[in-house]
């Protein structure tokens, strides 16, 4: 077992086993099994996590995502399926059994996924820090000047995206948190949620609640920077880290910490989750804004302080690359848009889309839909270029983006553009489930076509080895927490509206 081949690996294994044991003890509060059994199971799970995620949880943020996705997978296997089957309570994959096990899902994420991921990621980040320092020293000590310069440039190119700077992480994250908090606050004001938050300090004032809300938003935004600074490469992935982080904070904040700080008992039932569905959507919107703005500021930071250096410039300028991505995105969206329009036609949604510009005919709705599709496709092009290293990754990013637009577009912007208040309830989500299918199909199709455009362009670049090397460095490499992110967002994003509805 590779993890046992090194002293550091053994330490990781032992620490994770201990953290898993503590998580198991905590989990005892929501299960009928004995504390000892839970501690043993927790220690075993922690050890397994250390083995499986040892090479992947390289930073605290990456560790958190791997931890959460492994915990979600474990919940799907054990409490949602094996437990009801073995106890003879039902068949595999029954909705009512999964709903009954919703508290276990929250517990798995918070007692196992969260602490184990952060812990392993933090431990591994020290190793990677040492490895980076070694590589840097080797590069600087190269014999000839050309190699030294080349090493320096290569190191910068590879590392600049992920260089950790505390001030940048805190300030950028904090600013992003304010913007995300503003968007989330719109819903809170609409449903009079601020007094509930003010209850944390024993107040019922909306003003106090709003102040607290923004303080919390800034803190979560800053922690996003601390956790994910090293994983932020492109705008699209940053946006998706934000969405996952927002979802996680729904479990930790709205479902757990809020009642605890208010002095109330914690209720992890699916009915309580359903009542807080609006807060879940709010957390998703908050997260995507935090991720997007963080990625944007990070991108500008790198463009100004690093890429503007003539030594590091890419052969084609930012404007040219952006225009190309916009054009590819718009062209790719035609496929996705047409696919989505079949769903819209089948569900009779086209007249509602036409209402956006005051019409009611399906033909007009189809045209408006294609225009919106193009705009979203263009945004996909700008956000997700160079994110997909292969076809499956491309489709996965597209699916996640499609899901994000279900939350942002269907549940939020669509009613707002129609001049109505947005309704983030399970009922609204139920009505929007057909649209969710369309969004997923749209995302996948757009991403595939976009990836084909990228591949065609890359084939040209590969004719020149120097350009090929540059391009390869800027592509998302294997080993990032992207697969964990896809699993966590896609499965929870589809599962939660069904479980809580």
């Amino acid at each position: 077992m590779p993890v046992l081949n090194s002293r550091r690996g053994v330490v990781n294994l032992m620490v994770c086993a201990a953290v898993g044991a503590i998580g198991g003890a905590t989990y005892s509060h929501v299960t009928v099994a004995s504390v000892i059994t839970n501690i043993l199971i927790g220690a075993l799970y922690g050890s397994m996590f250390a083995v499986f995620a040892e090479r992947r949880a390289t930073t605290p943020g990456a560790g958190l995502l791997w931890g959460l996705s492994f915990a979600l997978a474990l919940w799907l296997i054990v409490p949602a399926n094996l437990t009801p089957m073995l106890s003879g309570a039902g068949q595999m994959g029954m909705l009512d059994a999964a709903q009954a096990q919703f508290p276990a899902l929250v517990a798995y994420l918070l007692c196992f996924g969260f602490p184990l991921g952060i812990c392993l990621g933090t431990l591994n980040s020290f190793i990677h820090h040492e490895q980076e320092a070694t590589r840097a020293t080797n590069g600087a000590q190269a014999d000839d000047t050309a190699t030294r310069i080349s090493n320096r440039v290569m190191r910068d190119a590879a590392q600049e995206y992920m260089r950790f700077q505390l001030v940048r992480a805190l300030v950028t994250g904090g600013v992003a948190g304010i913007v995300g908090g503003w968007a989330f606050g719109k819903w809170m004001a609409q449903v009079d949620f601020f007094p509930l938050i003010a209850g944390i300090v024993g107040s019922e004032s909306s003003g106090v609640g709003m102040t607290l809300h923004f303080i919390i938003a800034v803190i979560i935004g800053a922690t996003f920077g601390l956790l994910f600074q090293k994983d932020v490469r492109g705008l699209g992935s940053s946006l998706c880290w934000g969405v996952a982080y927002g979802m996680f904070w729904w479990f930790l904040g709205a479902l757990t910490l809020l009642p605890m700080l208010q002095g109330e008992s914690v209720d992890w039932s699916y009915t309580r989750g359903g009542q807080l569905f609006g807060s879940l959507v709010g957390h998703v919107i908050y997260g995507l804004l935090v991720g997007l703005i963080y990625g944007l500021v990070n991108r500008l930071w790198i463009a100004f302080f690093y890429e503007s250096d003539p030594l590091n410039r890419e052969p084609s300028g930012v404007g040219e690359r952006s225009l190309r991505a916009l054009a590819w995105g718009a062209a790719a969206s035609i496929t996705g848009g047409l696919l989505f329009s079949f769903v819209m036609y089948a569900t009779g949604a086209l007249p509602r889309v036409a209402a956006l510009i005051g019409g009611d005919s399906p033909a007009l709705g189809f045209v408006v839909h294609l225009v919106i599709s193009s705009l979203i496709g263009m945004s996909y092009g700008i956000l997700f270029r160079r994110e997909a290293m292969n076809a499956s990754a491309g489709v996965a990013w597209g699916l996640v983006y499609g899901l994000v637009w279900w939350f942002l577009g269907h549940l939020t912007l669509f009613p707002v553009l129609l001049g109505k208040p947005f309704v983030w309830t399970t009922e609204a989500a139920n009505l929007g489930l057909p649209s969710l299918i369309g969004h997923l199909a749209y995302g996948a199709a757009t991403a595939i076509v976009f990836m084909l455009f990228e591949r065609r362009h890359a084939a040209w670049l590969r004719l020149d080895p120097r350009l090929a090397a540059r391009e390869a460095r800027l592509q998302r490499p294997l080993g990032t927490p992207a697969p964990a992110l896809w699993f966590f967002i896609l499965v929870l994003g589809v599962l939660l509206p069904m479980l809580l509805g």
Partner: protein
Amino acid sequence: MNIMLRRAVIGVIAGSICAFILAHTFNYATLGFCLGVIVGIAYAVASGTKSRTYADGMMTAASFGVPLWVLINVVMLPLFAGETPLWTAEVMRAQFSALVGWTLYGLALGTLVQVLNDVARRAFGEERVLAATPREVKTRVVILGGGFAGVTCAENLEDTFGADASIEIILVSDTNALLFTPMLAEVAASSLEGTHISTPLRTTLKRTKVVRGSVESVDLNTRRVYLESDARLPSRMSDVGAANGDKSSGEGHTLKFDHLVLALGSVSNYLGLENVAANSFDFKSLGDALRIRNHVIDVFERADAEEDVKTRRALVTFVIAGGGYAGAELAGGLNDFARGMSPYYPNISPDEINVTLVHSRDRILPEMSEGLADYALRHMERRGVEFKLKTRIADARPGAVVLSSGEEIETETLVWTAGTAPHPLMQTLPVERDKRGAVIVDTTLAVPNHKGLWAIGDCAQVPDAKTGKPCPPTAQFALREAKRLAKNIYASVHGKPLKPFHFDSLGQLCVVGHHTACAEVKGLKFSGFFAWLMWRGIYLSKLPGLERKVRVLVDWVIEVFFPRDIVQTIDTEVRAGDTGTRDDTSRVDERDRMSEAKGAYAGS
């Protein structure tokens, strides 16, 4: 073992084992099992894993459980069952177990495929991926000329051939940038920065190899292009003449070709007037425009210090030979520039400034309709331009120009735009030419009787496939010819039939001064401010590259708020006949060769 077969076997095993999960969660167990096996094979064949990437494989495969559930259970199965898909929350919740099933199936499949791949790796070794051997270049396309025709042809060849490494495209140009000639007059008139209308070839072209150099000769028998000795070729690209027993061209200056595109354009034709050639400015290149701009500033500086009125008048008198597009646009632009900067030279009276356009015909802009040409003339006259129609330049000497009418104009500035001729290299080729000296091609743009030899642009006489008439030597036609040629070269390489060239002219545009232009678009005539807006909008959109568009746009905006730049940047005492720069040297050489070739052609 064949990679695909190995992966397929792994897929069958992993898919069959994991399919039991689907069988448990599907309403139809057999269907679930079969789907599980099929998806397992597809996943294993498509994924191809790296060693011990369990976490990645597990999570990626599980992520695809969601779209597979949507595609199969929510969309396909109801459709195959002949039901109208309702996709309501209730119907979808009824499929919840299948969603969980697909997710667990993905988790298991991702893990198992990874395990089996690692086992197979131990048992049979690493997958033997065919080494990506660089494909040998089989066909080399050499394009001579870096103007509109040559560069557009290269761009379209890149698009058409894509990343086919067996095709090598080489472009030979005597400059390293594509000059956007419609805006050249604005550079001479200090309205635009010179480099802003030139697009570097190396940033424009993606896979074309750019060689900066002038062509010495072409040997159609041995299919080689000989470059002048100052051209430098990478050793890999050059086909050393010595290898062929021919050492005359020296090593590293010979390019072998399979397809040769002649797109060298045209050069100024002084009609044998050597004194005029020696005492006038050319107006073809960026260097020419910059020299004119700096010369105008220089004569203003000298005139401002000049006490003698006659000499001062001569210094600020500018003669332009030729009333075509180039001459008219330059006259309008220079007039604005000269009169606009006169306030900064207090000793020069605006009355002393004179811009004269000399034209051999009875009206300027012969390519445009008479009404528009008259409008342009009247407008320019109102702004101070003087016209000498039905008049030619007969002679020139330092400080004076002699007209065919016998009149003598004292001036330090003569700009020649009155005549052009196809590039002199055309005269040296053993091919059929027209009376101008342009290479005659057929409707597919191929030079008859010379396989792989093509010609486009100003140096070719291209017959229109529909009308049979020769196409005019304009950039508009050159661009379309280049696009058609790229497709025809592709067809030729792949043994497909060639298509003939046909294009209907879109119209003409000509700017003749501040906020004024003439335009003819598909028979519709425009003049004045609207035509000027059309001119700027259309040419800005045609200017290659976003960066250049932005730079030109910024220049135009700056011009609205600030005066034109009168900083003198280069020594201007270099005329077309002088030998101060490389450009000029080569141009004189070209002219000499052209004269020789013309003589030879006339003799033959």
